[in-house]
Each structure stands twice: as structure tokens, then as C-alpha cells.
């Protein structure tokens, strides 16, 4: 959470673009990672991230601080955009059929080639999971969101999130062991 986030959000709701800029800087990497793991394509993840923040900025007046974290609001918008993306896009290639070798190896941050390949393998294994398992894994283990915040973002109870988390890890194990055998 951003320092003084409540005040920054208040300013942004009032139309202060620099305040929204701060929120963008803080949350953009998280939303981008979420989008990238969900769609597996860098350009499309960038487009989705842009659309999420554009929508958030255009509708920030409707955001009400009811004790919910701002990130859960953003994740909700992101989830809706991902759903729309898969609904409208003609998928000529199933996500499960994507060859890890075809997907671009991410960024300059990862200097070690082996590490890059490992990241790609994990990312592709997540891509094979059900959407709600993907959401839980990204939010709980990649973004380290607390259970309450994850539950709010996914519109589920905390108990349901714990259950989903357990099942998601179990499925991810299977997917990763399958990718090793391949």
C-alpha cells in the first residue's frame, strides 16, 4: 500500500492528475503482471494495462472509499477487461497449446537465461490453470496481497479464497511436473 494512499486517492477523486499519476506509478507494475500472466502476450498485456488505468481515471469519481483497498478496485477492473478480452478476441490458438518457446522472453531485468526460461515455464504453467486459480495465484503469491484484499478483488469470501489457493497450488504442481516431463 502506498504511503498516505487515502489522501492521494481523495485528491485523485477530486481530479488531481498528479495524484492519479502516483497511483499509476505504484499499481501499474502489479496490474501489468496480472495482465501478462493472464494473456501471455506482452503487447496485449500492455494494451490491457493501459485500458484498465484509463478506465480507472475516467471513472475515479465513482470510487468510494468504503474501507476496500484501491488495489482491489483496480484488480476488479482488470479482471473484467481480461474477461472481455477473451470474449471478443477470436482465439485461433488455445492458451494450452501455446509453445513456451514461442512466447517472448521477458525483459532486461532477468539477466540470467536459465532464470528467464524458468520464469517462462512457471508463467505458462499458470496459464494452463482455470481463470480463478490464476487470479488467486497471482494475487496471493506474486503480488503478496492479503487474503482479505484478494477476497474483495475476487468478490469471494476469505474461506473461499483459502480453498481456491489450496486447489490452485495443487493444480500448479501438476502443471509444472507436466511441463518438466515435456
Amino acid at each position, binding site marked *: 500500500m502506498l504511503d498516505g494512499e487515502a489522501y492521494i486517492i481523495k485528491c485523485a477523486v477530486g481530479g488531481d*492528475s498528479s495524484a492519479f499519476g502516483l497511483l499509476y506509478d505504484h499499481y501499474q507494475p502489479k496490474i501489468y503482471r496480472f495482465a501478462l500472466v493472464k494473456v501471455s502476450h506482452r503487447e496485449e498485456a500492455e494494451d490491457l494495462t*493501459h485500458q484498465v*488505468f484509463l478506465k480507472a481515471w*475516467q471513472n475515479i469519481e465513482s470510487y468510494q472509499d468504503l474501507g476496500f483497498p484501491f488495489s482491489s478496485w483496480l484488480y476488479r477492473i482488470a479482471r473484467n477487461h481480461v474477461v472481455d478480452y477473451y470474449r471478443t478476441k477470436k482465439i485461433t490458438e488455445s492458451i494450452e497449446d501455446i509453445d513456451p518457446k514461442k512466447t517472448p522472453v521477458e525483459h532486461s*531485468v532477468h539477466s540470467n537465461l536459465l532464470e528467464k526460461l524458468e520464469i517462462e515455464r*512457471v508463467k505458462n504453467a499458470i496459464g494452463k490453470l482455470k481463470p480463478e486459480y490464476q487470479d488467486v495465484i497471482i494475487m496471493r503469491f506474486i503480488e503478496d496481497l492479503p487474503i482479505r484484499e484478494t477476497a474483495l478483488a475476487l468478490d469471494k469470501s476469505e474461506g473461499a479464497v483459502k480453498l481456491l489457493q489450496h486447489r490452485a*497450488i495443487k493444480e500448479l504442481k501438476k502443471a509444472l511436473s507436466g511441463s518438466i516431463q515435456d
Partner: protein
Amino acid sequence: MEEDIIKQLKKLQGIEADKRFTEQSRVLIIGARKQKSIWGVILKNVELGTSFALAGILVITILGGFSAWRFLSPLKLSNLDTTGLKAEAQAVDIQIQLTNLRYDEIAGAVESTTPSAESKNAPVKIWAGNTSRGQQKETGTLATSSPSSEVLSIDEALEKLSE
């Protein structure tokens, strides 16, 4: 095993968007905010006012509709002429009575021309037999055989009745 997976997942935290994309996107998003114009605010207020006015009219129409109908209705039930209606109803009754009276007169006249119990059906015969000569004769004989002092033919009886 589970810890290994979680460690691997943590490595994904290193994924970042392209810096150039981030800068461009940031500038575009912040610049894309719609500025609220005065006309927009006025239009929104007008829309709100119109919706309230329409809602008010609807409520007034529903609540006052029945009472207004009494004045606006072309039927105007409150202005009904009851005496006229009564007179009309009485006139209808009179006509019925007259019809019955006329029938009774006819029946009485015929009965008077056929005194015997044997000729109970005579009025019917006379009435129906008015069209043929043969029957006229038959009824004529019947009439002459009656004990009454005044002897009437069928035609005469009918003329009397019609008077």
C-alpha cells in the same frame, strides 16, 4: 515442493512493463481525462430537473386522475336528468300495458262472439281465418249461432276492435 513453487512464483515479481510504454501510457491516460465544461454541468442539471418534473406530473396524474375525470369526462354522470329517465321508463311501461290491453280487447271481443264452450278455439280461428273466404263463412255461421242479441260479422268485429 510447495515452497519451491512459491519461490518460483516470487520470481515473477521481477516482471516489469517496458519503460517507454509506461511513460507513454501514463501521459496519455492523465491527458485523456474529460474536462467538465459549464455546459455539461448545466445539461446534467436540466436533465435532472426534467426527470423530477416528469415524475411529479406522473404522480399528480395518478392521484388526481379520478377526480379530474368527473369534470373532464364527456359522460358527465353527475348531470344526469333523472326525471327524464323516469318519464322514459314510465312511457315504456305504458306502451307495454297498452299492448296487453289491446290484446285483451281482441280476446274479449272474440270471446263475446263465441259463447259456447265447444268453440273455445274460435278466437284463434277467427283471427287466423281472416284471410280465406271459406273460413269466413264458417266463422260467420258460428257468429250467427251465438245467443247474443247483436250479431256481428268477422269484418265488423275486427273494425270495432281496431277502433
